[in-house]
């Protein structure tokens, strides 16, 4: 099935992209929060789930996986408080939908690949992002999940390579604004979802209520207490050397994402090491209640 979506023309295009990008382009993240939420009747980015807004949840989940994370906004949304706390990229086309956000991001940083996320995926989880990044094919125009509902590519939890920009611009120039149609005709690498519920999107108050109940239940089950110690630059940026906190983070990576949303940390996770209970640990080690966690900035002894 996957092969039939790759037309000969698109295949040639993706081949050209592969030759141009000798090195795998770094990945930046973009959460699309420029929608009008008309079916929901209120701003989907600001909807709270288990105490945190959808936008904050999405940015926290995304930030540790990408070199930089941005929120895509319309001009009239820039000062809106939920959006104002994050680095923004403003749409340049009016009412062109998600594709406008992606094009604006590609215009700002044409050299990187963009991991694009919709702002109405409250059940999105860590494993769906790590699997997408691990399965990424930089030689294709995009890497996307095949929806378990309809078998079609899922455009709003996908990685768009630098080489997709020209084809996306042509798509829009021809009057097409649907990103799914773009993926159907482009050279796209389709992968299976590790957790099919993770990409359920929320469009109505009823769907919101159901997702909200699910997440509240999960956070009540998964909330744990951790002690975090801060050293050197992180201590100064956190304004403290130690704290005990409640969190539903399952791994140090998720915990660093949560803390990065709270404190003005400038060190990306890839420059840090992590220790659990005074021993070096992997970023994906499952955290247990009572663990002592230390994020270790680049060292400089001697």
């Amino acid at each position, binding site marked *: 099935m996957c092969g039939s979506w790759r037309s000969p023309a698109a295949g040639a295009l993706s081949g050209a992209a592969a030759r141009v990008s000798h090195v795998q382009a770094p990945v930046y993240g973009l959460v699309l929060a420029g929608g009008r939420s008309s079916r929901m009747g209120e701003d989907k980015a600001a909807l709270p789930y288990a105490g945190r807004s959808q936008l904050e949840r999405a940015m926290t989940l995304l930030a540790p996986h990408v*070199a930089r994370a941005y929120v895509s906004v319309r001009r009239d949304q820039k000062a809106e408080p939920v959006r104002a706390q994050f680095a923004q990229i403003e749409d340049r086309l009016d009412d062109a939908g998600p594709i406008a956000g992606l094009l604006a991001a590609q215009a700002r940083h044409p050299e990187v690949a963009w991991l694009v996320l919709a702002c109405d995926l409250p059940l999105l989880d860590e494993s769906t992002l790590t699997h997408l990044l691990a399965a990424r094919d930089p030689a294709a125009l995009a890497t996307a999940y095949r929806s378990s509902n309809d078998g079609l590519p899922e455009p709003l939890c996908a990685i768009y390579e630098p080489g997709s920009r020209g084809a996306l611009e042509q798509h829009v120039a021809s009057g097409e604004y649907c990103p799914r149609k773009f993926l159907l005709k482009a050279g796209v690498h389709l992968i299976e979802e590790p957790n099919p519920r993770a990409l359920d999107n929320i469009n109505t108050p009823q769907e919101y209520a159901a997702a909200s109940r699910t997440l509240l239940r999960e956070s009540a089950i998964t909330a744990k207490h951790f002690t975090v110690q801060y050293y050197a630059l992180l201590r100064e940026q956190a304004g403290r050397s130690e704290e005990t906190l409640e969190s539903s983070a399952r791994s140090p990576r998720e915990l660093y994402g949560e803390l990065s949303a709270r404190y003005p940390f400038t060190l990306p996770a890839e*420059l840090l090491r992590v*220790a659990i209970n005074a021993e070096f640990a992997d970023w994906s080690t499952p955290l247990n209640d009572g663990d002592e966690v230390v994020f270790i*900035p680049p060292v*400089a*002894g*001697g």
Partner: protein
Amino acid sequence: MPTFHFTRTPIDAADLRRALADPACGGFACFEGWVRDHNDGRRVQHLEYEAFEALALREGERIIHEAMTRFGVTRAACAHRLGDLAIGEVAVWVGVSAPHRHEAFLAARYIIDEVKHRVPIWKKEHYLSGDSGWVNCERCASAPGADAARHGHSQPR
């Protein structure tokens, strides 16, 4: 005495050297790291060291043990200062005693290199101009993650 330790008072090199004396050893190699008055074109007024001691002590002991088994030396030790240090002070001391000089030199070199790369110790430089910065942290932090990684500041392992 543990073979790797921290101290907040000046390092007594004579004391540390005495502890490595051994009748079976014919060679002793030592490295001292001193506080320098400049770094990367900036004039340094003083340094400040801090460590995640619980893990640093374990990692330091592991490095000493690796050096002893790898090079077959008789004794080895390392001391590192914490807190504020003035120009010219000894920040780190490494000593190795062995039957012959060759292994002693190799082991001392191994220990100081690994300590600098692996042990969670951080150094803040206070400059004559009045500002300060954490070595290896501040410049990469202002660059995008990808660029920083390319500059080679990412940590080993």
